[in-house]
């Protein structure tokens, strides 16, 4: 490596390590502090306000039933629940499935011509009866304690929105198991960001808001197909705190195929970058607290850090491939097989590698803490292996494409 490249690598590694240490530091600092007053405390609430849950749905006949069933099973008084299914012009049997739930007094069904998720949620908001309003995607399912744990958090009058802990619904294949590790890490991150009042996404699955937030800030906008990110940023712009309850579990169906995952993540990363552009006045602006000075800049820089290190890895792989090609050119395909021999001398002990080892260790720790928050134990499992094996290969593809699309002003689509 050239000296300039070594310096650049060390600066980026320092930044990455700094971010990692800050997250761990905050985690331990606030380890026993919930952003709500509940946590595992499932004693009855002081009062049960009416909560509207909007389920925007478009061609989701297969998963809608499960979503509504999970809402009906919530440990929350039925007469205080207001479930709105908003069919956004489905062309399959979604409407028929939705109509079967009309027999439940707490369920109402609305239909409209297709206009995008944000329009469906906005229709729901306009029809809402609740003091609190939330949204649940029709491919997600709530744990029975999820709502009461979230509502307990609103006993703090400062809190304007609460995000849950999102887990992968029955991870089946390797790709979904890989995502389950990522989602567990997300639980850790959201808990830490929540304690810093720096959550920059109020995700579609079951984020709950005070109704006055919509009254004062308006409804959702298209926002580059990531309306939940935009709304969270709008809230921060108006200094409305967003909290997190890490044991309010919501399960979501994740993509089963690489193509599906790629499209979803491309939309997320592209949407984040575009929304960050739209709210650039918040970046490095201490007026917006930790969100301005840390979360937003870190999220943007980390995309470029990931791409930089992917580039380095590609160069290394290409150089060892080149060596193999040269070998084949020089002596043909070797007929004998030689087992690689381990000798500590050949272990990379450069300064950069040492920092990378430290970072890898802390990443493993973050994953294990995420697992503890999500499943109650820190036992390593096979999913972690899948995560380490494949995530680093897959993620750069959508990161690169998202940056490319933003740079060339190419739009991404939902599906």
């Amino acid at each position, binding site marked *: *490596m050239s000296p300039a490249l*070594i310096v650049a690598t*060390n600066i980026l590694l*320092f930044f990455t*390590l*700094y971010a990692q*240490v*800050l997250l761990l*530091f*905050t985690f331990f*600092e606030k380890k026993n502090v919930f952003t709500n007053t509940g946590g595992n405390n499932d004693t009855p609430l002081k009062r049960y306000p009416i909560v509207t849950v909007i389920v925007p749905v478009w061609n989701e006949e297969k998963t809608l039933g499960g979503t509504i069933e999970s809402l009906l099973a919530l440990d929350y008084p039925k007469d205080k629940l207001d479930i709105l299914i908003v069919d956004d012009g489905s062309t399959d049997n979604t409407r028929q499935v939705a109509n079967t739930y009309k027999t439940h007094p707490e369920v109402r069904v609305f239909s409209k011509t297709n206009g995008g998720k944000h329009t469906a949620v906005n229709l729901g908001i306009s029809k809402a009866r609740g003091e609190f309003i939330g949204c649940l995607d029709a491919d997600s399912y709530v744990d029975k304690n999820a709502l009461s744990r979230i509502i307990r958090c609103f006993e703090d009058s400062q809190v304007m929105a609460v995000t849950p802990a999102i887990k992968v619904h029955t991870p089946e294949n390797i790709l979904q198991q890989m995502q389950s590790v990522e989602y567990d890490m997300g639980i850790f991150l959201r808990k830490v960001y929540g304690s810093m*009042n720096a959550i920059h996404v109020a995700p579609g699955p079951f984020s709950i808001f005070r109704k006055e937030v919509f009254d004062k800030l308006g409804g959702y906008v298209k926002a580059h197909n990531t309306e939940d990110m935009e709304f969270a940023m709008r809230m*921060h712009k108006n*200094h409305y*705190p967003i909290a997190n309850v890490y044991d309010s579990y919501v399960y979501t169906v994740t993509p089963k195929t690489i193509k599906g995952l790629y499209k979803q993540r491309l939309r997320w990363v592209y949407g984040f970058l575009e929304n960050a552009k739209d709210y650039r006045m918040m970046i490095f602006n*201490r*007026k*917006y*607290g*930790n*969100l*301005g*000075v*840390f979360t937003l800049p870190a999220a943007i820089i980390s995309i470029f850090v990931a791409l930089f290190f992917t580039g380095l890895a590609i160069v290394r792989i290409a150089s060892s491939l080149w*060596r193999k090609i*040269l*070998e084949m*050119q*020089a*002596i043909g395909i070797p007929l004998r097989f030689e087992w690689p021999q381990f000798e500590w*001398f*050949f272990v*990379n*002990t*450069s*300064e950069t*590698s*040492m*920092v990378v080892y*430290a970072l890898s260790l802390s990443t493993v720790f973050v994953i294990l803490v995420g697992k503890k928050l999500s499943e109650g134990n820190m036992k390593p499992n096979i999913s972690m292996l899948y995560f380490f094996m494949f995530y680093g290969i897959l993620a750069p593809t959508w990161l690169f494409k998202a940056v490319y699309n933003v740079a060339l002003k190419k739009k991404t689509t939902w599906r």
Partner: protein
Amino acid sequence: MHSVDWKKYFYVFLVTGAIFLTAFFVSNTLGNKKIEDIQTMQNRVSIDILSSETQFALLSESSCETVGDTSLSKDLDSLAAKLSYAEVNLNSNKEDVLWLKKNYSLLEIKDYVLMKKLSDRCQVKPVYILYFYSNRAGACPDCQKEGIVLTELRKKYPGLRVYSFDYDLDLSAVKTLESLYNVQPELPAMVIHRSVQYGWKSVEDMEKVMPELATLTGTTTPVETSKNTTKK
């Protein structure tokens, strides 16, 4: 409301700095340990050469039949690989690595001289190659490939002695060797049968040029080192 705990950001900065410094310290310590490893190996090789020299001195008083195995330490193969690795990877120990490389080249030359004396005295025909390469960017595009060929030859004919030298190494003994055979900077260059051959040669080419390879038995010989070549 939004607020920033600047003190925390500062403490985290200090902690991160401390981790970085620790990483640098550990890396440096391990780097030095690797250098020590190479030094220890070179000391062993040096003793082997001294032993061979002593053996040669004794030869004048005895017959060639008592010479036995005059090959150098088996450490040489491993030493070459480690030096090669160190040259690329131990950035913070560049001076030490360069010194070790010079030392290694001298050990090779000493063995070469000893081997020549031995062959004159005992009328044995050693099979050897003096190989000159360069690690300088753009100076020798084919050196990496030639290194692979020589590695393969060494595997195929363990009795072959390959002495490899970095053409750019600032060491008078190497410069003398270069001028002795009038080696021009058209690399890779190999001295075979006292004449210089330039350019890339395949395993088959080498076997044609050196038919005596087929007569070699499996003994250990010196090896070469460069970032372009691995152990020979």
